[in-house]
């Protein structure tokens, strides 16, 4: 029993940062209808930046999210302006091909810079834990969860309360409509892509204290983000958030019930079930 409670707790803790990662993907998709196949690779770049700041200057990953968030924001904005913006009306396969090209560049640029061996950020508190009843909490995971939650909340408030955020939501709800009321659509697109990238970049930094990573890690996070976003509902931010927690928990339970190396199978099966029976996602009403 404790085993399962423990698994659920761990799943939720990781799920928080999954949510942040998927929020980024969902935002980009919602506004531009483009699937970011380079999502996980952007995340890996966030991880390496944090790693580098930690090794070179001793900056704690929880602090360096400010830097990585901004850096990956810029990266996203540049990718949107230079590339994505030019293929918004292109057929599906060409959009995918473009983003795959970006993913290849990002992944292998990381390979050039840091080599293929897994890295990890060894903070002083990396192995600290505390107990709450029979359940053990892993300090970095708790901190990551808390920060991810704060960031997600910040994003929510930004989208709800600010003029810019309102414009982004309007574009996401209705692209043509936003165009008609004279929104500076290019600005909104660039901003949305940048913010989406910043989310996943920050999520990357937040994972470094407990997760080893290498350039080839990216694709798995890309796929996990896809899973979450479909499960929650394409373009739905709340869906991405809940979906992240759900996938976190289901993988963590899957690791206990099956074997750890099979944990993703649970979320893939979940994905297929959602695709078949509730393609609009758990948290979106149809149409």
């Amino acid at each position, binding site marked *: 029993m404790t085993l399962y409670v423990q698994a659920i707790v761990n799943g939720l803790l990781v799920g928080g940062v999954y949510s942040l990662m998927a929020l980024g993907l969902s935002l980009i998709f919602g506004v531009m209808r483009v*699937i970011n196949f380079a999502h996980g690779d952007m995340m890996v770049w966030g991880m390496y930046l944090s790693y580098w700041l930690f090794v070179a200057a001793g900056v704690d990953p929880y602090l360096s999210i400010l830097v990585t968030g901004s850096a990956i924001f810029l990266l996203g904005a540049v990718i949107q302006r230079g*590339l994505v913006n*030019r*293929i918004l009306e*292109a*057929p*599906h*396969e*060409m959009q*995918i*091909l*473009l983003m*795959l*090209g*970006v*993913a*290849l*560049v990002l*992944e*292998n*640029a*990381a*390979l*050039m810079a840091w*080599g*293929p061996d897994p890295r990890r950020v060894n903070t002083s508190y990396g192995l600290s834990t505390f107990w709450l009843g029979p359940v053990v909490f892993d300090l970095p995971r708790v901190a990551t969860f808390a920060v991810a939650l704060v960031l997600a909340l910040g994003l929510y408030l930004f989208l709800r309360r600010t003029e810019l955020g309102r414009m982004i939501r309007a574009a996401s709800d209705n692209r043509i409509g936003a165009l008609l009321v004279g929104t500076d659509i290019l600005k909104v697109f660039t901003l949305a892509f940048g913010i989406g990238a910043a989310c996943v970049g920050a999520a990357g930094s937040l994972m470094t204290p407990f997760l080893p990573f290498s*350039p080839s890690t990216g*694709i798995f996070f890309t*796929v996990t983000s*896809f*899973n979450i976003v*479909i499960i929650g509902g394409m373009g739905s931010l709340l869906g991405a958030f809940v979906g992240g927690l759900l996938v976190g928990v289901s993988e963590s339970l899957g690791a206990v019930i099956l*074997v750890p*190396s*099979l944990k*993703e*199978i649970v979320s*893939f*099966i979940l*994905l*297929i079930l959602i*695709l*078949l*029976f509730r*393609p609009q996602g758990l948290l979106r009403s149809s149409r």
Partner: protein
Amino acid sequence: MLRLGLGAVSGAALLILPFWIPSTWQNLLITTFYYAYLGQAWNILGGYAGQLSLGHAAFFAIGAYTSAVLASQYGLSPWLGMFVGAGLAALLSLGIGYLGFRFGLRGFYFILLTLAAAEICRLIALHLPILGGYTGLFINFTPNPWQFQFQGKIPYYFIALGFLCLACGIVWLVQRSKLGSYLVAIREDEDASEALGVNTFRYKMIAYALSAALTAPGGTFYAYFQFYLQPNTVLHINHSVDIMIRPIVGGMGTILGPVLGSFLLELLGEFSRTYFAAGVAGLNVVIYGVLLIIVVLFLPRGVYPTLVHWLRQRPGDSR
């Protein structure tokens, strides 16, 4: 007439070429043919029927593992095991297709379904003891043609070329048949096709099964060309991408697209490998990625259709 002559000359060239070129070039051509073959198989579903699959690695792996396991466990020749693999791949594709098409998944949703199915296959394959788990499966080399094993590169060259010609022939036949007309109609507009009496579900299933069945022998070839299979390579998403990318670059829904795409990407890959790989690992793939991006931005219809368009326009162009 010109085309016929051109065809005859290039055909003859392809037949004598392998005897004159160094083994690295032989390798390059074998890989080109082999990926063109896989791309052609993918093309039936993706290019003609318009259903993009990001999970063809699964069918590939079924072809590879089925023939390898049948050969090692039961001594069945891969030449026969290949057909068993094709049958199993078709069965799996019918399963995935049934789910996807019955439930009306289109576009990105279908892509994700295929990707998820392939990933599930990868995770399962990693845990099947008979496939060697993370260590992978080694195939013992016995230079026995009946066991699909050959000394030197030249037999592989001709087999790959033969496979490719066969696939192109099949697609050519498809293109000239009712099946082909229906597939492109479905690609263009499913509802309009239904209204005109096309059983879209059935034809998509046929396209999927044919595509999967053709992909599997590619896996058999790979198994006996590499003599080593590992789920994280043959079933990796990147491998599905490798299969899909060539027809997209070359031009989907055309016979020459996958072939041209494969030649180009192999050349680009080789070019970036020889000129940039010496220094830093990864640089060649970065270059490759940049080139892909350039293709999308400047040849968005694929290389072959763009080429045809140019050739048609130029002579009559008065400007």
